Structure formats: C-alpha cells, structure tokens
C-alpha cells in the first residue's frame, strides 16, 4: 500500500467514523492530550531551578497523581456523561417535535406495545431508511424493470429529504447533547474530582518522602559521628615513645 493510499484511507476512515458527532473525538483526543500535558509538566518541574528540592518532592507526586487521576477520571466520567447525552436522544427519551414527526412518517417505532423499543438508535434507523430507499431506487432503475419515473422521483426526493434531515436537524441535536455531556464530564472530572483526589495522595507521598529523608539524614549523621570518633582514637604505637623516653615514661 502506497503512502497516498494510506492517506486516502485514513481520511475516509475519519469521515465515516467521526463525522456524525464529536463526542468520541473529544474523549479520545482529550485523554491523549492530558497524557502529553502531564509528561510536559513533569519535564517542566524538573527544569525549574527556582523551585526548591523540598517543594519538588510535593510537586512531582502531585503531578503524577494529577495525571493518573485526571486521565482515569476524565475517561470514565466523560465517557459516561457523553454516552448518557447520546443515548437520551438515540433512544428517543429526549426529542424534538421535528425528530418525533420524522420517526412517525418513516415508521421508526420509539414505543411498541406500550414499551420503549430496546436498543433503538434513531440515527442508525434514519441511515437504514435512506439506504433502503437507495436500494429501491437502484432496483427501479435496473434493467428488466419498466422505469416508473414517478417512483424514481419519489425515491430520490425521499433520499434527499432524509439526508438533509439527518444533517440539518438530527445530527446537530444528537451531537449537541453528546457534546454537552462531554463538556460537563470533562469539567467535573478535571476540575473537581481530580484536585480533590490528587492532593491527599500527593501530600501522603510528600510526608513519606520527608520522613524517609529525615531517617536517611539521621543515619548519615550517626555514621559521620562514628567515623569522627574513630579518627580521634590514636593508635597504640603513638604512645610507644612516651614509654621508652625517661622524661616522659612512668617511674615504677
């Protein structure tokens, strides 16, 4: 596969998977950007010589705790709120009058036998309807059939109408609910959950590091003291001349 083909496939993949709503993209790129941001910030703390070693002992674990909790809570909370926003519309619990009317005209059941239809996705149902009209149009134009121009026009109009409706009415509403869900989730997770959870973790780590450092300092001081005492003790041979010299020696 050539580079040009790879590029072409990538663009088409992006168009097919991310053009219906930005919720998934916001979640995915948001998570990746928090990872990159955390790596950059850790490098930044290391490079900042105006922050003391003592404070860095808090800021490193704070940054790591921040990143871990942020990424985790961002993904979990934002995904949940984004999905709630999306499902509220796709399942038909929150609708607009226009969407409801379209579902009735296109025989998309939201409620069947007094109960909500399980697993309903109105967006997919609209796309399926458009695909059915396209198939019917293709069939009515194919060889062996007498072309009924009225039918062809009707199918063409239906396809155009459904695509316009999806693009202009359904997608902005469903996407809007998904984006609102993503924004709410991101704000709550990044700005409230993360700082409330990371601070106790970071301070516990700081206390642990400080205690460890104090123990190390005490051990070092003890070692230095012992070494000093050992140096002060003179070896026995330094007393040897005193014993042999008459003036300095002991008279027995």
């Amino acid at each position: 596969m050539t580079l040009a083909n790879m590029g072409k496939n990538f663009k088409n993949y992006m168009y097919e998977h991310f053009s219906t709503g930005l919720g998934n993209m916001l979640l995915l790129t948001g998570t990746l950007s928090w990872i990159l941001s955390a790596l950059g910030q850790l490098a930044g703390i290391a490079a900042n010589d105006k922050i003391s070693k003592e404070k860095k002992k808090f800021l490193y674990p704070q940054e790591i705790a921040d990143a871990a909790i942020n990424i985790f809570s961002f993904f979990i909370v934002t995904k949940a709120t984004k999905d709630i926003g999306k499902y509220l519309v796709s399942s038909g619990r929150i609708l607009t009058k226009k969407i409801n009317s379209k579902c009735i005209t296109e025989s998309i059941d939201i409620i069947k036998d007094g109960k909500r239809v399980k697993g309903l996705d109105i967006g997919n149902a609209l796309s399926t309807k458009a695909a059915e009209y396209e198939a019917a149009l293709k069939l009515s134009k194919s060889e062996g059939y007498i072309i009924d121009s009225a039918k062809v026009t009707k199918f063409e109009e239906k396809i155009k109408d459904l695509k316009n409706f999806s693009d202009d009415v359904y997608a902005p509403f469903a996407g809007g609910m998904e984006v609102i869900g993503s924004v709410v989730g991101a704000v709550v997770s990044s700005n409230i959950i993360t700082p409330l959870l990371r601070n106790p973790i970071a301070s516990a780590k700081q206390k642990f590091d400080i205690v460890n450092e104090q123990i190390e300092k005490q051990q070092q001081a003890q070692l230095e003291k012992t070494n000093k005492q050992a140096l002060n003790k003179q070896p026995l041979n330094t007393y040897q001349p005193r014993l042999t010299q008459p003036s300095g020696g002991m008279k027995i």
Partner: protein
Amino acid sequence: MIKITNFIVKRLPKKEFNGGRTEGIIHWFGKHISAPENRLIIGASALLSQPFIDYYNKDVDEETRKVSAARTIAKTIAGTLTGYSVREGFTKLVEKYSEFGPKNNFFTPSKAIKNMPHTYKQYQNAMGMTLAILGMVVTNFAIDAPLTNFLTNFITPKINKPKDGGVQ
C-alpha cells in the same frame, strides 16, 4: 459501563422540545462547540475551582500550598492558551485544505458528500483535533511547560505577599 449508562438514562425524565430556547442551545452546542471551545470551557472552569482547592489543602504546609496553587494557575493558563491555539490552528488548517474542487483538497476525503455541510464540518473538526494531538507532542514540551514555569515563578511571589489573605 453501558449498563450503568442505560440504568441512568432509563431513570431520567422524557422530554420533547418544540422549538424554544433549550432546543436552540443544544443545536448551537452541536454546531459550534468543538475541541478548541471545549478546551476553553475546561480552562476557564479550572481557574475558578482548582487554585482554591489547592490553596485550602490543609494536608501540606502553607508554603507548599502557595506554590501548588500558583502552579495550578500557571498550568491552567499555559495549558489553555497553548491547547486552544493548537487545536484552533489545526482545525483552520484542515478547513482551508479540505475544499471540494481541484484546489486546496489535501484533506478532502474521497467519500465525502458535498451537500451535507454539518457532517463535513464534523469531519474537519475531527481531523483538526487529530492533527492537534501531533502538534501538542511538540508544543507541550516547547511552549506549555516553559510557560508554566515562567508563570509559576511570576505568580508565586504575588500569592506570598499577603500575610493572612487568600489567593490574590
């Protein structure tokens, strides 16, 4: 996760909008809010909450709390400015080079449908966001982190000034 989401969705009230302001706001979010705006919202709300949570964190000494709050303010400002600019820049770049036609079509997918402008706009935003991630690999280290350090060093003395006040 899906089960929890479904559980919550089933318990939320049903609602049908008929025009009105709320429906307009939801539509507006769907049409206009993309990654750059999302980053701005997160950044602005972060400035309103995080520094205060850090400043009143009683688990650490006062000096560390001040540096921590200053750093959070600096990080939020630097992150929001860089994040917004990079996302906006790449989205504009994709918009410029994804025209339907013989020129400026580097990012135009062959499967794109011309008469679905909202769908196409979402694609342009998504492509811009993807490229912005690559851009952030560079900017997070080259701009974001040094700018955070500069702002931290600038803000910390300002927080230190008052003897008994809060974040100034």
